[in-house]
């Protein structure tokens, strides 16, 4: 059962001090020391350490997680500097074609796109650092702008998942009955399809038709699709927790005090699901970025002229035999980003709840 940090301080010290995981025995000593100070178990009013601070303290000791957090921040900053790089170093925009131009490599003028249509490989000079694509666009610039797109889609999708997943979980778990009967079939339907197939079908359709006022090639469309697809992946576990929490004494107490259902949900139940939600934020971000790459790879995600890591890998795979860097460099950026989010996410999960087990697969 999930060990919620917000309730953990009411537990017996032994239950907490017991090594939750054989491999993670190193934590025990410190935890025991902190729980001894606990006013609920000691009956003394020493300063208690809040569960969140306890988690933060555990996270701060996790050097690997901190290193990958640094890497993630670095990658984000690099991608956010895309306009600066385009303007001051590469001197070319992300969507500027340059089929007939030449570039100076080691004192020689070379065609950016050869007469047979094959683009130039990495020059490792300020212009066309990673080479060009078939339209003579600078791949390094597109890589950074593409990273911005991928991260933005990930962030928007994660926001959608967190807000609506929590809402759906709260509503179906608290009201059950009719609300559950209406919302759950939708969740089950989304849940029963593999995310890639569902995303590709919806993405292709919406890229063609747009979505209301949003144009078909807007990057908000993949963000929206990814968000909706993963709502049940958060909604289901939250619902389960709410079902359990709503039977507890503190909820009865709130009800007896005359609190309305909304107030009970928001001020009594929601804070108790906070640690689950916090664990899901990095996980969902990682899965959203990955799913975006899958969709863009299959042509159903980010539409031209925009780029993303997925479209760049998809374009580059044509040249995997001659110039593998076209596919492997955006691939490396993608993997490093997702990996750093996953490692940090694991660190957060371990810090909050050393036993939890959640799974999703793209």
């Amino acid at each position, binding site marked *: 059962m999930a060990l919620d940090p917000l309730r953990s301080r009411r537990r017996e010290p032994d239950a907490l001090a017991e090594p939750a995981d054989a*491999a993670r025995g190193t934590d025990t000593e410190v935890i025991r020391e902190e729980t001894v100070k606990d006013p609920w178990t000691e009956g003394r009013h020493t300063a208690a350490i809040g569960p969140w601070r306890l988690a933060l303290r555990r996270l701060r000791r996790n050097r690997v997680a901190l290193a990958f957090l640094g890497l993630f921040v670095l990658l984000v900053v690099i991608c956010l500097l895309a306009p600066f790089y385009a303007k001051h170093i590469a001197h070319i925009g992300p969507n500027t074609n340059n089929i007939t131009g030449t570039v100076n490599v080691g004192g020689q003028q070379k065609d950016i796109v050869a007469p047979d249509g094959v683009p130039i490989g990495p020059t490792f000079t300020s212009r066309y650092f990673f080479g060009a694509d078939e339209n003579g666009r600078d791949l390094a610039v597109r890589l950074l702008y593409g990273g911005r797109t991928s991260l933005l889609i990930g962030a928007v999708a994660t926001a959608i998942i967190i807000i609506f997943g929590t809402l759906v979980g709260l509503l179906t778990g608290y009201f059950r009955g009719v609300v559950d009967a209406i919302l759950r079939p939708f969740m089950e*339907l989304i849940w029963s*399809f*593999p995310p890639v197939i569902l995303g590709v079908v919806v993405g292709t*359709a919406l890229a*063609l*038709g747009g979505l209301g006022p949003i144009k078909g090639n807007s990057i908000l469309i993949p963000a929206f699709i990814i968000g909706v697809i993963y709502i049940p992946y958060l909604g289901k576990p939250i619902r389960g927790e709410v079902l359990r929490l709503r039977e507890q004494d503190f909820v009865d107490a709130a009800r007896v005090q005359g609190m309305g259902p909304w107030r009970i949900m928001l001020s009594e139940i929601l804070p108790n699901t906070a640690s689950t939600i916090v664990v899901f934020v990095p996980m969902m971000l990682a899965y959203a970025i*990955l799913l975006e790459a899958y969709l863009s790879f299959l042509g159903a995600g980010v539409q031209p002229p925009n780029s993303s890591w997925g479209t760049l890998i998809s374009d580059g795979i044509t040249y995997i035999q001659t110039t593998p860097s076209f596919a492997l460099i955006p691939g490396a950026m993608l993997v490093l980003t997702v990996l750093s989010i996953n490692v940090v996410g694991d660190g957060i999960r371990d810090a909050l709840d050393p036993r939890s087990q959640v799974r999703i697969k793209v």
Partner: protein
Amino acid sequence: MARFVVRRGISMIALLFATSVVVFAFFELIPSYNPARAIAGRNANATTVAEVSRKFGFDKPIYTQYANTMKLIFTGQVIDYQDDLNVVDQFKQRFPVTLSLVIPAGIFWLVAAILLGSLSAIRAGRIADRAVMVAAILGVSIPVFLLAALLLYLFAYKLPWFPNTGYVTFAQSPTQWAYHLILPWFSIAVLSIGFYSRVLRSNLLDMVNQDFVRTAKAKGLSQRRVFTRHVLRNSLMPIITMFGLDFATLLGGAALVTETVFNLPGVGQYEASAIGNLDVPPILVGAMFTAFFVVIFGALADVLYALLDPRIRLTG
């Protein structure tokens, strides 16, 4: 048992119906989607489009269209809009390719996951355990198509050990069949192994402290027997459920990414091209195909549960 089969049968019919209705209705809701224009071609004039529309019944109300399409699917006569091919025949032709891709990959991945998961549980906290953990987190961070591309580059071009693409049927030459499929098998299986091992590991570690394990030890059973017959057997259930679902969706076409990169003429590749062209009949059949396998493998997983743990009864 009879009750179990009946209930699963009903849930399959319900899921197939829901899937087909949703997929069908979804395409009707796209404002710019006009299958008649797609079939008639880019340069067709309005009369041709209207004619095509009448011929395929697109001018009928949506429920009639749905009923007609379902009738065509279940009588095996439905054709795709793109190439006028019989969709059911396409699935029949391509399914052996998907099977030969997915089944060996699935066996490899399940066996490797059980071995590595057991290893990392037995040696929890040591180097082997850490290595599996790193593999697991890498596995969920790398998209399949990138691994496939990397494998192609390394082992088909840089070191020409394996053929780059193509498919040889098992009947033609079993060795060539395996030789052509090794890289695809590997790219499907390897990313999941780490994750499955981690899940199995944590189940095993939970199980070690259970009373029945102590009883088994107290009876004087050997370490090995306690582990295989008692601990492992009871820890397998969660990964069997996971595997059933993953395997079912792979059979239904979720291997489309691998099939696309390695140019294998399987079900997934057909679905991928149909999706790109918004060709509704193959998408519809593909979705129902997946739903079919999801129910079948869900039921199989439950049967396996009951075999592994006699306390569980099949009630549906």
